[in-house]
């Protein structure tokens, strides 16, 4: 009998604990890691009396700006007159999968963070609501220059608006360059190879090497380096020829030869084949790497994540022959927030979006160094971010957004894996290039046939004026 009571008691305690842990979500979802409105946050009494309360879920995978965005959301929750409350959920690498699951189980967020990489896929999956109906003439005029097909506009409908983008630069250690007797960052790939060799010769005994990239994931490594080298050299950075509307990896293969040379010279940090980007940054911050190429997130990284005493800077990427024949591509530009097609509160979601796209927020986003502004009206009025190293990454005369290249999934190895294999193990570069062209163009024609992508060759495309 005693045991029975004990069992009953334990069950009650367990039930209470489970109920206590399940939390209380106004939408009935026990979402974790949610940064809801601050306690005591209330809309104005008049608004509450007039309008029914609406709770919006906003999901993002941005962590670097979390504090600032949270602050802006709290302000919105306190000041908006439509009785809207926004709940921010910050996710990590599982963002795309979480969004998939949310949409398939009808628990989608109302507002989503959209990036260059996920927007076309989310559009194809039918997750996004067109926002054309909400766009006023003023907003259209403000964002007109950065409404781009395949980026934020699909089938003549707009799904997101631009905020910021990422520039890509050569990141170099000025002290190591000086120690090796090199005055300027390299302008050509041959200069880059020579500089890497000199830096290694001068510092190898102390574990210093001239060059490194995060080759654990070759695509991530090349998409932050060769992409930029190619665009400045006058070629699309992911192997697509915008003039013919076909893939052509011949320019890519030219660049690869220089990377192979750096490996042969022993100028690349040993173990770079298994290096992730953060361990690479830690080694750079420790003064062990002469140079690498990466995004404009690096100044923020060396300010907060890996604070460093070294004297470093960002410079334009080198080009194939030292001549600038194209604009350096600004990536991840053109998208920021989007509205879910499943949202029951699209009007409210737009009200929130409109608030976030206000001049003040976009301006401070740039000034605080979370991203580089690409909306012309904001670029004009925003001050430069006061972060060490950021001056090398700011948008200048050589930077521009490029037309989007189609994304296809070919059979077999992707271009980065195939070329990295050549760098490490050698082989017939011509044959590798021909094979890549054949496989990528085959995948492209199948994707066009299925209606997944559309390609319009532009024989008049000018890489010095990628936006026409």
């Amino acid at each position, binding site marked *: 009998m005693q045991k029975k009571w004990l069992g009953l008691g334990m069950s009650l305690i367990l039930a209470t604990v489970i109920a206590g842990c399940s939390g209380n979500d106004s939408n009935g979802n026990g979402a974790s890691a949610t940064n809801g409105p601050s306690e005591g946050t209330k809309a104005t009494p008049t608004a509450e009396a007039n309008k029914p309360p609406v709770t919006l879920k906003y999901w993002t995978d941005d962590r670097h700006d979390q504090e600032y965005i949270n602050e802006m959301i709290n302000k919105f929750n306190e000041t908006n007159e439509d009785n809207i409350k926004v709940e921010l959920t910050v996710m990590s690498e599982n963002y795309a999968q979480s969004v998939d699951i949310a949409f398939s189980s009808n628990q989608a967020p109302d507002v989503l963070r959209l990036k260059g990489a996920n927007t*076309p*896929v989310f559009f194809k999956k*039918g997750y996004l609501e067109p926002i054309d109906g909400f766009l006023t003439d003023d907003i259209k005029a403000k964002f007109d220059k950065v409404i781009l097909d395949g980026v934020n506009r699909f089938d003549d409908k707009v799904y997101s608006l631009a905020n910021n983008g990422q520039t890509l630069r050569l990141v170099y250690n000025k002290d190591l360059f000086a120690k090796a007797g090199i005055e300027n960052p390299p302008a050509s790939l041959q200069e880059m190879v020579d500089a890497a060799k000199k830096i290694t010769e001068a510092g190898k005994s102390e*574990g210093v090497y001239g060059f490194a990239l995060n080759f*654990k*994931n070759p695509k991530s490594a090349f998409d932050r380096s060769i992409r930029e080298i190619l665009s400045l050299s006058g070629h699309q950075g992911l192997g697509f020829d915008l003039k013919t509307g076909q893939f052509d990896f011949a320019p890519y293969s030219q660049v690869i030869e220089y990377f192979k040379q750096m490996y042969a010279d022993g100028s690349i940090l040993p173990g770079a*084949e*298994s290096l992730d980007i953060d361990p690479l940054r830690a080694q750079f911050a420790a003064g062990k790497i002469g140079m690498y190429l990466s995004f404009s997130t690096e100044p923020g990284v060396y300010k907060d994540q890996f604070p460093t005493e070294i004297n470093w800077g960002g410079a334009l990427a080198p080009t194939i022959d030292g001549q600038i024949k194209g604009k350096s591509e600004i990536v991840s530009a053109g998208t920021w927030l989007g509205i879910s097609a499943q949202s029951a509160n699209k009007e409210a979601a737009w009200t929130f979006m409109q608030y976030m796209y206000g001049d003040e927020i976009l301006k401070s986003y740039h000034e605080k160094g979370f991203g580089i502004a690409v909306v012309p009206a904001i670029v004009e009025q925003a001050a430069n971010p006061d972060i060490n190293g950021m001056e090398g990454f700011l948008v200048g005369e050589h930077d521009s957004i490029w037309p989007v290249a189609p994304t296809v*999934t070919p059979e077999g190895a992707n271009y980065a894996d195939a070329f990295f294999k050549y760098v*490490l193990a050698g082989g017939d570069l011509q044959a590798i290039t021909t094979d890549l062209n054949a496989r990528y163009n085959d995948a492209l024609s199948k994707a066009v046939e299925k209606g997944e992508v559309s390609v319009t060759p532009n024989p008049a495309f000018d890489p010095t004026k990628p936006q026409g």
Partner: protein
Amino acid sequence: MNLKWKRFGENSLFLSPSIILTAVLGVYPLIWMLRYMFYDYVGYGEPLFIGLENFRRVMRDGLFWESVGNTFIYAGGKLVITLPISLLLAVILNGKLRGGNLLRGIYFMPTIISTAVISVVFYTIFNSYNGMVNTALMKLNLVSQPVDWLGTKYAMFTLILVAVWGAVGNYMLLFLAGLQGIPQDLYESASIDGANAGRKFWNITLPMLAPVAQLVIMLAIIASLKGYESIMLITEGGPIGKTEVMYLYLYKLLFPVATGMPVEQQLGYGSAVGFVTAVIVGAITGLYFLLSRKMNKMY
């Protein structure tokens, strides 16, 4: 009759949680996978029936077959090193050893540590630029420059070492359980007959342990063929596919790592690869059972 039905009802009630979970989380997705392997499907849009095309693609997919080869090297290396060490440790710890229980706990500990933690620790030990192994080797003047333990030459060897470290304690415990089931009288009789330790091991321990060993080896084979977590975390299958094993290859098809550009899930092709992979693992396990059937009848 009533008692029979009552028993049936009770049994069903007790079995229902696992039956429901297996049906929902195991059988239902399996049915979908068996369907999708005949379709071109990337996770959205209308799946397109393409018959056996996915299987034809598997046959001509050089990367997949390379990963199968790598799996055999990885699994073979892991088994050849792990099983003898596990057995040896089990035999030693089965004796009256001071601190035996503590040692059992220590050897078993890697089994309960998260793979992510193990992977980060081993990356710190083996990375080329400031790893502990290289630092020690260079301080002892055994090498003049860092050895690239995770490079093309040694990455697989390093990953096998990680796998061995993680598995030895687990199989040791299973062998130990088997050893404790061997009657002590046999050893006592052998001692009276003048058998030495080696003879006892060869003529008593090994034959008596055979049925347990058969099961342990089978579990070890399956686990080795399916293992990919630490590889994913330490090398991601690289460099240049040298450590890509078949389950990692499959994982990347179904859960692509998107960096910079979107990469689409290949649910149709991934299902076909998953099926072929399961057939390979099943065939090897079946073959092992066939070849090892005598182990079950050794005493």
